[in-house]
C-alpha cells in the first residue's frame, strides 16, 4: 500500500466539526459503523468562539457561525493523541489552516502519532488556485492528505489540488448570509456555514462534476437519507461525510446505514 493510500473501513464517515476531537470511548459500539473518524478542525494556536449568534435556522437548514473554537494543536495532542491511537477506526485529523507555514509546524507533530489514517486540510474560503496548490504541497508527508475545498470553488480547484498530490478532495459546507436582529432590535448580517437537507442538491451536483473529471472526491453536504448517500457513492465518490443527520438522529445511524449500504 502506498503511503498516500486512504484506507476506510467502509465509505461512511463524519464531517469535520460534528463529533468532537476524538471518538468517545463510551460510544465505541455506536461508532463501530464509522469507516473513519474525522476530528473537529484544529488550528495551530487556540481559537475562541465567534461573537454573536452561533446557530440560525432557516427553511431547509441552518447556518453555523462558530469560529471553529479549539484548544490549538499542542493541547489537542496532549488530550486526545492516546485516544486516537486506541480508536477502532482510522482517525483523520482535520487541520484548519490560514497560512501555508502553519503546516510546517503541524505536520512533524502529527506524523509521529499512531492511529492516524490521514489528514484533512481545510482551506480558507477565499483561497485561489495557486494558494490551494501551495497548501497541498506543504501538507505532503508521511500521511495521505485530503484537501477540503471551499464549496463554491471545489469543482474549479479540484484538478490542481489532486495534481499537486492530494489523495482526495472533500467539500466544505457552502457559505451563506442571514439577516438577524441584534440586542437592540436592529438588523445585521451573520455569515456562516450552511447545513441541512437543502444543501444536498448542490453537493450532489458538485460531486458529479468532480468525478466526471476522473478526480477522487469524498462527498459531503446535506445527506439525510441512505438513498442520498448511495446516490453520491454511485456517482463515483470514494466515501461520504455526514453532518446534520448525525446531530438529528444520533450515533445509531452509523451501524444502521453501514448495513444498508453493504
Amino acid at each position, binding site marked *: 500500500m502506498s503511503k498516500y493510500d486512504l484506507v476506510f473501513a467502509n465509505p461512511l464517515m463524519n464531517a469535520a466539526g460534528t463529533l468532537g476531537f476524538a471518538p468517545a470511548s463510551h460510544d465505541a459500539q455506536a461508532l463501530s459503523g464509522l469507516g473513519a473518524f474525522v476530528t473537529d478542525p484544529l488550528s495551530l494556536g487556540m481559537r475562541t468562539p465567534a461573537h454573536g449568534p*452561533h446557530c440560525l*435556522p432557516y427553511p431547509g437548514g441552518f447556518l453555523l457561525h462558530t469560529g471553529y473554537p479549539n484548544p490549538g494543536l499542542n493541547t489537542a495532542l496532549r488530550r486526545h493523541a492516546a485516544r486516537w491511537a486506541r480508536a477502532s477506526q482510522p482517525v483523520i485529523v482535520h487541520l484548519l489552516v490560514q497560512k501555508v507555514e502553519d503546516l510546517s509546524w503541524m505536520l512533524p507533530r502529527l506524523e509521529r502519532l499512531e492511529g492516524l489514517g490521514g489528514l484533512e486540510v481545510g482551506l480558507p474560503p477565499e483561497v485561489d488556485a495557486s494558494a490551494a496548490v501551495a497548501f497541498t504541497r506543504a501538507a505532503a508527508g508521511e500521511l495521505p492528505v485530503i484537501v477540503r475545498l471551499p464549496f463554491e470553488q471545489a469543482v474549479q480547484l479540484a484538478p490542481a489540488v489532486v495534481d499537486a498530490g492530494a489523495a482526495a478532495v472533500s467539500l466544505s459546507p457552502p457559505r451563506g448570509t442571514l439577516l438577524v436582529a441584534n440586542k437592540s432590535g436592529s438588523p445585521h448580517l451573520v455569515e456562516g456555514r450552511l447545513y441541512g437537507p437543502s444543501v444536498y442538491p448542490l453537493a450532489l451536483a458538485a460531486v458529479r462534476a468532480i468525478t466526471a473529471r476522473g478526480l477522487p472526491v469524498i462527498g459531503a453536504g446535506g445527506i439525510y437519507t441512505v438513498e442520498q448517500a448511495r446516490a453520491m457513492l454511485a456517482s463515483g465518490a470514494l466515501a461520504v461525510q455526514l453532518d446534520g443527520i448525525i446531530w438529528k438522529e444520533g450515533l445509531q445511524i452509523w451501524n444502521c446505514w453501514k448495513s444498508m449500504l453493504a
Partner: protein
Amino acid sequence: MHAYQARIGELRLDPAGQVQARLDCPPAALPAPGQYLLAYDPQDASAALATPLFAAELLADGFWAAAPLPPAWQPGLVLALRGPLGKGFALPGDVRRLALAALGGSAARLLPLAQQALRQDLSVALFTAAALPRLPSSIEINPLGMLPEALAWADFLAVDLSVEQVESLAGVLGLQGGLPPACPGQALVSAAMPCGGSGGCGACAIPVRRGWKLACQDGPVFDLRAWW
C-alpha cells in the same frame, strides 16, 4: 445515550402564549430539572435538526415540554427521543431556602426544580419578570429587582438565563468588584445545541472565567463559580 419514543398527548399555551406539549413517555426518559432531551419526528424528512426539550412540569408518565416547539407538532404525533442529556440542577442536601431567578421571558424551566424543592419542604422564592402559570401558594413570587436582597436569605440560587445574558449576570445579582454571590448556586444557560451533546459543533460555547465551556456537554447547568 438512550433512545425512546414519546407521543404528544396534549398541547396548551403557557402564560406568554407559547405552546407547550405534554409528552407521554417512559419514566426512564424523564429529564431531571435542567437536563434536556432531543426529539424529532421520524416522518419529517425536512427537519434539519432535533429539538431540545426541557421540562416545564414533570408528571408520573411524562412531562410538559417548555416552549419553543416546532409548530408542526400536534397531538398524536410520535417522536423519537434521545437522552436525558446534560448536567441538571443538583441541590445540596443542606439547602433549606432556595431562590430561583428567571432572567428571560419564561420561568418554565425552573418550575420542575421548584416542584422538587417543595417535595423536600424547602422554602422557595421565585424572582422573575415573566408571566407565570398558577403556582402553589407556598412559592413566594418577587420582581427581579429584589434578587440582590434575596442572596443574603438564600442557601442556594438557581438561575435560568440565555448565553447573551451571562455577561450581565453580576449586575442582575447586584454584585460589584468581581465579588462572587454570597450563596452557592447554578445557572441553566440557554444556548443553541445543534450537535446534540457530541461536543462537535462548538455552537453552544459559553464564555466562562477561563476560556469557554460547551453547554451540551459541560452544562447546560453550570456552577456559578464558572464565572467567579
